[in-house]
């Protein structure tokens, strides 16, 4: 059974729950720092260790960040809402309840438009709410680092209390075969929006953006099927693979007349498959109730409007605007996006370069180097100002293409600005016509038959002479100038 056959007969419904660690300086309910990678249990206090008597106080910056996210996702912002306690026992959760939001989220009823294959899909957002992260448990003594067979468990509470935002979509229907791509496009778009807002570093590999994917299948015209929730989906590619593999797995069960179990499943990067986790039916009753230690959150309307007015341009709007301004096809724009070059090209243009010039270098030599070394474009040590200078030197005819490539090579080796490199390496287009004419005369003398052809009107033959001149001058002549001088001489 091929994937195409499956999505002929079943309609997938997907839903995504995304957790985002906010990049606030301090934790959600205390003033401990949030930096990643500190020594275990050095970023803790009575509040985030849940010592007896300690009380939470809400981080106002986290509220503002959440409202920013809500507004960017076209949500309504609650005028009055409360935190709630989600009660369950777990050793890395100091209070044995998580402060979260339940039936009164801060942001609700929004949407995010994403592009898939030139088609715009609107993903409806059910809610955006605030909660706190848990600590991390390490199990010692077992063979696999898992709890089975472990003799000791160590808990690091540095992460406990870091602000988490949960963004929940409404069920996404009608995307058919595209469902996996839509899921991926949504997470990618969401990541770009969050990055643009500056509220999180959104690194999936570090866990600051985590994604759970719900998938179900139903036959056309029938009710939605039982859904599974896939966790441990830690990259954009995995989002797509997880949905696809779940569609294939579920269709297999349904085709055999089986029933889908409502459960949590875990995605495995290596196999691309999901395996069963704990069953949702036995899930804890979380005994939610309004958090009595915190007063309700009541963001003033003026403040919300102030935040709205200060929002940056949304990535999709910006993409459309830049594509237009740069005169690119959808395909070319996509390449620029995939290379992560949008910001760099824009900054290079701001620094004075033409859009063609900026794109040529970032998407050409520099992108190639980035691919070869696996470094991000912005980690190559080349700045937009650097590229803008290069472009202006080539535009002014001081560098030809060949020389410019040498300058880039040197720049990547950290030899300085284009100007400095040219000076140090004596790389400049030879514009001294005396020296050029000498070289041209020598070339004509060495190739009398070619010279004869040109005199006879065959201008195409000039290439041979140009090549000879470039060779003599070590490539430092401007080919156009050389050609003009040759044709002039052999008129």
């Amino acid at each position, binding site marked *: 059974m091929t994937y195409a056959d499956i999505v002929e007969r079943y309609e997938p419904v997907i839903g995504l729950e995304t957790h985002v660690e906010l990049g606030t300086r301090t934790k959600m309910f205390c003033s401990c720092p949030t930096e990643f990678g500190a020594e275990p249990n050095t970023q803790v206090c009575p509040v985030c260790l849940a010592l007896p008597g300690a009380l939470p106080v809400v981080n106002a910056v986290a509220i503002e960040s959440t409202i920013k996210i809500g507004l960017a996702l076209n949500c309504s912002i609650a005028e009055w809402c409360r935190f709630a306690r989600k009660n369950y026992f777990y050793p890395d959760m*100091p*209070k044995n309840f998580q402060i979260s939001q339940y039936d009164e989220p801060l942001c609700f009823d929004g949407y995010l438009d994403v592009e898939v294959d030139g088609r715009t899909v609107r993903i409806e957002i059910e809610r955006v709410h605030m909660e706190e992260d848990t600590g991390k448990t390490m199990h010692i003594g077992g063979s696999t680092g898992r709890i089975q067979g472990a003799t000791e468990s160590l808990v690091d509470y540095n992460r406990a209390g870091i602000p988490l935002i949960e963004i929940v979509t409404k069920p996404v229907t009608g995307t058919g075969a595209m469902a996996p791509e839509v899921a991926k496009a949504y997470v990618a778009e969401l990541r770009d929006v969050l990055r643009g807002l500056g509220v999180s570093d959104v690194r999936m590999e570090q866990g600051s953006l985590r994604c759970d994917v719900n998938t179900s299948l139903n036959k056309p015209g029938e009710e939605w099927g039982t859904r599974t929730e896939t966790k441990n989906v830690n990259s954009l590619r995995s989002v797509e693979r997880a949905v696809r593999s779940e569609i294939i797995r579920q269709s297999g069960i349904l085709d055999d007349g089986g029933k889908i179990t409502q459960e949590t499943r875990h995605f495995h990067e290596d196999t691309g498959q999901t395996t069963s986790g704990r069953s949702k039916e036995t899930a804890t009753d979380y005994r939610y109730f309004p958090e009595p230690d915190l007063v309700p959150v009541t963001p003033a309307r003026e403040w919300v409007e102030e935040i709205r007015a200060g929002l940056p341009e949304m990535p999709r709007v910006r993409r459309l605007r830049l594509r237009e301004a740069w005169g690119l096809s959808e395909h070319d724009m996509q390449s620029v996006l995939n290379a992560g070059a949008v910001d760099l090209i824009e900054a290079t243009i701001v620094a004075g370069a033409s859009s063609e010039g900026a794109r040529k270098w970032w998407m050409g030599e520099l992108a190639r180097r980035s691919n070869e070394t696996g470094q991000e474009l912005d980690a190559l040590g080349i700045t937009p100002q650097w590229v803008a200078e290069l472009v202006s030197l080539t535009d002014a005819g001081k560098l030809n293409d060949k020389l410019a490539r040498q300058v880039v090579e040197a720049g990547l080796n950290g030899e300085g600005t284009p100007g400095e490199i040219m000076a140090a390496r004596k790389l400049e287009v030879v514009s001294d016509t005396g020296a050029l004419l000498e070289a041209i005369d020598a070339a004509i003398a060495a190739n009398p038959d070619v010279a004869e052809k040109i005199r006879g009107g065959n201008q195409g033959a000039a290439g041979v002479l140009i090549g000879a001149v470039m060779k003599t001058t070590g490539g430092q002549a401007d080919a156009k100038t050389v050609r003009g001088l040759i044709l002039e001489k052999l008129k």
Partner: protein
Amino acid sequence: MSSLIKKTAAELGELIAAGQTSALEVTREHLDQISKVDGRVHAFLHVDVEGALAAAKAVDARRAAGEKLGPLAGVPIAVKDVVTTKGLPTTAGSKILEGWVPPYDATLVERLKDAGTVILGKTNMDEFAMGSSTEYSAYGPTFNPWDLTRIPGGSGGGSSAALAAYEAPLSIGTDTGGSIRQPGAVTGTVGAKPTYGGTSRYGLIAFSSSLDTPGPCARTVLDAALLHEVIAGHDPRDSTSIPAPVSPVVAAARQGMSGDLTGVKLGLVKEFMSAEGAEPGVVAAFHAAVESLTKLGAEIVEISCPNFVYALPTYYLIAPSECSSNLARFDGVRYGLRVGDNGVNSLEEVMSLTREAGFGPEVKRRIMVGTYALSSGYYDAYYGQAQKVRTLITRDFQAAFEKVDALISPTTPFVAFQLGARTADPSSMYLADLYTIPSNLYGGPAISVPCGLSEGLPVGLQVMAPTLADDRMYRVAAALESTIGTLTPPEL
């Protein structure tokens, strides 16, 4: 010379400030009294002799250096063991916290230290403040100095008994359903529950977050007001702390001491007068006190608060629900008792064994009730419904305060009962808080002041005021005290 321990906190503060005695002398006398009587009273779980002497010496040194001292500088105080004290054991009366030494001070303890009071130690209480007799302390009961066979009230029995036994002139209590006022009433002392949010809960080990209120205990109304002023006021570390100035409680107490209540209108809660269970002696003492208030110029009217009769069942849904969540943190992972950690038991088993061994029967009872009341499918019928009734009770108060300045009632339906008399039947114990619980549900301030004796045992009168009008209850209580006088317990 044992004259210093009988003095009020206000007097001691003046004597120390004037150099007529020293903080050290005052502290020593109280420590002597503790060693003399606490073997019989058991008001204290922990006495900090060295810390108290050092704090007293520091106050004396400040005075010697010419510093002007505040009204309570050098005055000893006992702190209920549910409040965290840096470097001093804090158990909340529970085995599960045996040996735990907090690394931080509660906000109110910081304020006590800033005011120069001398912390003598930590007082006994019902485990996690759940109880009305201090019999549910995991460390044994406290005995009422008026009659050592009787209970001192609860949960703050230790804080009130310490006052009646002259072990301290001041103490800190916490009041969730009456834990300051009811012990005050049955020990013949004063206990005030401030407006909820008027005193910080930061560092108060939570029982029921939406009800818990720390407050002052003393032998006189003025002393309670002086202590109230030290500990009250906004605290940014407690989100529910009210960012408003503290009402002028000390001035109001002084005004009341003049014995004039002309123009003050007081409401008798009709539903409390007809309620079953109040002892005749308590009713008689209360009515005599009402007579006294009338003579002072107060106008007395009867007020109906129809929803007050639902206060007890409402409280016994809200408080257990919140406690079931608040006490979840006691799991043996980070502090306190840990049972069954033998490398074989799972984490869950260790947590479960720890809680089984660490919590006493009343705490377990309330955790189970609360867990049930919050569970899916029952929430609306129990916790949700209780919140609605709470709103109705609040409306009763608001309507009453449109007609009167304050409400009055007996503090508790019965005088101190014999130890063991009510432990077999929890609901008979719960009745002790029948009159005190409504103001916790509402959040307004309330005070218990001695109003006479019944069969030789103290009876308390409760004054309930509107939220943030704490000064009003101090004025009325001080006026009553000015005619009735303070009660003197028998020599121990």
